């Protein structure tokens, strides 16, 4: 590497050339191409050069004797006192610190600062030397960069949150998993201390927390009450509380419980399905929060995604129910019967436990249908289903098998248990029915197929139903309104 040799005017010797261009060290100091300050260990300026004064427009008197930090704008003062000074004291040096100088006239001046500490022989700091560089141009593009970065970070949070929400909600199979995910994702997106989802309890006028963390200030809230959750639901809009002071003004009864739970702020965002609120997403914060519009917008979007997922799951549950249940009576249809029966037979075979299938056919239904009409016939079928529900054990499955044929699957039923159910059914059906004349009596012919597994082959569902059907037919043949038992 070669070092360029300074070129001086012809005729002058080297020393004279330097004299000509650098008349004195003092001039070098005063008119250096950077601002230059010396401060005492307590931060007070003791010496400053001309360049600094020319750049800033301060007079020497306005600078010397003042703490250096007092020349900075407030934001820089905060940064300088909390971060730069400690580093300077611990490490003896700071480099390239970006600060902003307030000027007596004109715009604030962005600067870059290098400082070093000089210690005495005893190791104690004596003074700090600071070089100051004008960073106006640099600052302009840095600010652009900074704003771009912040905007990118904000949109990254938004995109990540919505992506996660879409993926999680899409995979959710139950209402519980949707509400739990909604609370969790909202909590992470807003740095909330905790979050919960509240849904109305049917016909109770009460909102209850169903997901997320335990509701810190009351698990359930009356829909008519003066609470932000209730108000968000009633007014179908986001309700926010920024501080306990605000809670005191808006929801006085809430202020003390919030503070006692070490909480300061909260948001309540309604879950709006076609503008009709179906629940509320509630977030709690441990410090005062001034909610910004983009935060609230993300809150609403998240709530909307959650609502859509809840609607989808409720619809799916409805469809599933429709596909597997009889429309008129709400009992299981043949498809569900097939499934439940196969399950019951498998379980019985595996654990060697008895089970039974009860087949019943209504006696006298055709006459009712013919004489009173189909509507009355349907009403009788609905009444019969209600009586069946009252007669069986809670764990039994009742299916509508055909027009006026029903099948009951009794799992874990010892021989006499199934017979007892059959007898209760018989007694229930023969009770008079409102609006049906006594001349049109209704009874049931019942067949009970009892299965006691002893190992080996598990019977097919159809086979068992067929046996119960045959037994029912025997009851019909023998005079109706009775049951016949067959063991298989």
């Amino acid at each position, binding site marked *: 590497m070669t070092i360029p040799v300074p070129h001086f005017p012809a005729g002058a010797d080297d020393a004279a050339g330097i004299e000509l261009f650098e008349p004195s060290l003092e001039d070098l100091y005063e008119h250096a191409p950077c601002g230059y300050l010396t401060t005492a260990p307590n931060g007070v300026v003791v010496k400053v050069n001309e360049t600094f004064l020319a750049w800033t427009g301060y007079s020497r008197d306005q600078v010397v004797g003042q703490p250096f930090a007092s020349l900075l704008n407030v934001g820089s003062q905060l940064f300088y*006192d909390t971060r730069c000074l400690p580093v300077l*004291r611990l490490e003896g040096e700071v480099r390239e610190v970006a600060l902003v100088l307030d000027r007596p006239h004109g715009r604030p001046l962005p600067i870059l600062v290098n400082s070093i500490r000089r210690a005495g022989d005893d190791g104690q700091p004596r003074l700090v030397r600071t070089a100051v560089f004008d960073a106006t141009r640099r600052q302009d593009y840095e600010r652009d960069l900074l704003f771009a970065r912040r905007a990118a970070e904000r949109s990254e949070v938004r995109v990540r949150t919505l992506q996660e929400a879409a993926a999680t909600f899409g995979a959710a199979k139950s209402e519980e998993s949707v509400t739990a995910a909604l609370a969790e994702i909202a909590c992470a997106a807003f740095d909330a201390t905790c979050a919960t989802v509240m849904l109305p309890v049917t016909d109770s006028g009460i909102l209850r927390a169903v997901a997320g963390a335990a509701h810190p200030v009351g698990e359930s809230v009356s829909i008519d009450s003066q609470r932000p959750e209730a108000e968000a639901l009633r007014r179908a809009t986001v309700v926010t509380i920024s501080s306990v002071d605000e809670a005191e003004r808006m929801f006085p009864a809430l202020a003390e419980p919030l503070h006692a739970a070490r909480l300061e702020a909260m948001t309540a965002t309604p879950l709006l399905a076609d503008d009709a609120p179906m629940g509320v997403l509630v977030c709690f914060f441990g*410090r005062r929060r001034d909610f910004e519009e983009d935060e609230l917008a993300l809150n609403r979007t998240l709530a909307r995604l959650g609502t859509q997922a809840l609607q989808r799951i409720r619809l799916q549950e409805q469809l599933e129910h429709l596909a597997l249940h009889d429309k008129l009576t709400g009992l299981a249809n043949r498809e569900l019967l097939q499934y439940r029966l196969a399950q019951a037979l498998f379980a019985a075979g595996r654990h060697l436990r008895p089970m039974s299938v009860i087949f019943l056919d209504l006696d006298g239904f055709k006459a009712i249908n013919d004489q009173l009409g189909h509507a009355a016939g349907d009403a009788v079928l609905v009444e019969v289903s209600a009586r069946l529900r009252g007669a069986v054990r809670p764990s039994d499955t009742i299916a509508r098998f055909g027009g006026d044929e029903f099948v009951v699957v009794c799992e874990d039923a010892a021989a006499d248990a199934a017979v007892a159910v059959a007898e209760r059914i018989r007694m229930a059906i023969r009770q008079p029915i409102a609006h049906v004349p006594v001349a049109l009596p209704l009874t049931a012919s019942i067949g009970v197929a009892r299965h006691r597994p002893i190992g080996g082959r598990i019977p097919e569902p159809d086979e068992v139903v067929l046996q119960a059907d045959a037994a029912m037919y025997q009851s019909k043949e023998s005079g109706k309104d009775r049951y016949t038992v067959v063991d298989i």
Partner: protein
Amino acid sequence: MSVSASALDVLRRNNVNVSGDASGRPIVFAHGFGCSQQMWRDVASGFVTDHRVVLFDHVGAGDSDLSAYDRRKYDSLHGYADDVLEILDALDLRDVVYVGHSVSAMVGVLAATHDPSRFGALVLVGPSPRYLNDVGYVGGFDQADIEAMLDSLDANYLGWSSAMAPVMMGNSERPELADELTTSFCLSDPAIARHFARVTFLSDNRRDLARVTTPTLILQCTDDVIAPLTVGQYVHDSIAGSELVVMSATGHCPNMSDPGQLIAQIRTHLT
């Protein structure tokens, strides 16, 4: 004394350092925003002869476990207060003298009001329950000032992520960076620094002052722009039975600029 596994986790998480006289009255130093336990170096040394001295880093600062930084937990000062209580618990300290500088003064207030049982005295150095001005209250700053401070933070961290991120992620190809980092006491992840700044400067803990039951000493500096004298007076008026001392030390960090005076004031108060 046996220390449980979870206690060890706490001590590691907060980089807790214990020194001094094991049988002496415990004194715990909590650093403020912007630095680490290193700030207490010259003060702590004044207590090792007759106190059990405990230093620690808040999670996100110094040599704490950065992976423990949970934005939800540390979105309020309660998260930091819980850590303090866990440290006192892990070391099973009683009758503790808690010395909190700057934001850690409020962290101590929150910890001591949540569970006063382990605290014997609170020393609040340059405390401020709220930095923002409010109706009938002068905190010293407007929202715009705090935003300018965050700008300042960001401006000084512009080049950070490219230079320092590999170190945080344990890049062994550039071990020289790791050395640099361990000697840079006050460096931390810019995202954490920004979040901590927000939590520090936008919190409002005025309500909590009245609940303090631990004997409290307030040490105020002369010419502290961050915690002006009026704020110190407010804290003094709000904590029943507290003592306020205005020191001749200037600026916001008397623990560094005048450790001798700070030691003397604390000692006077404790005797």
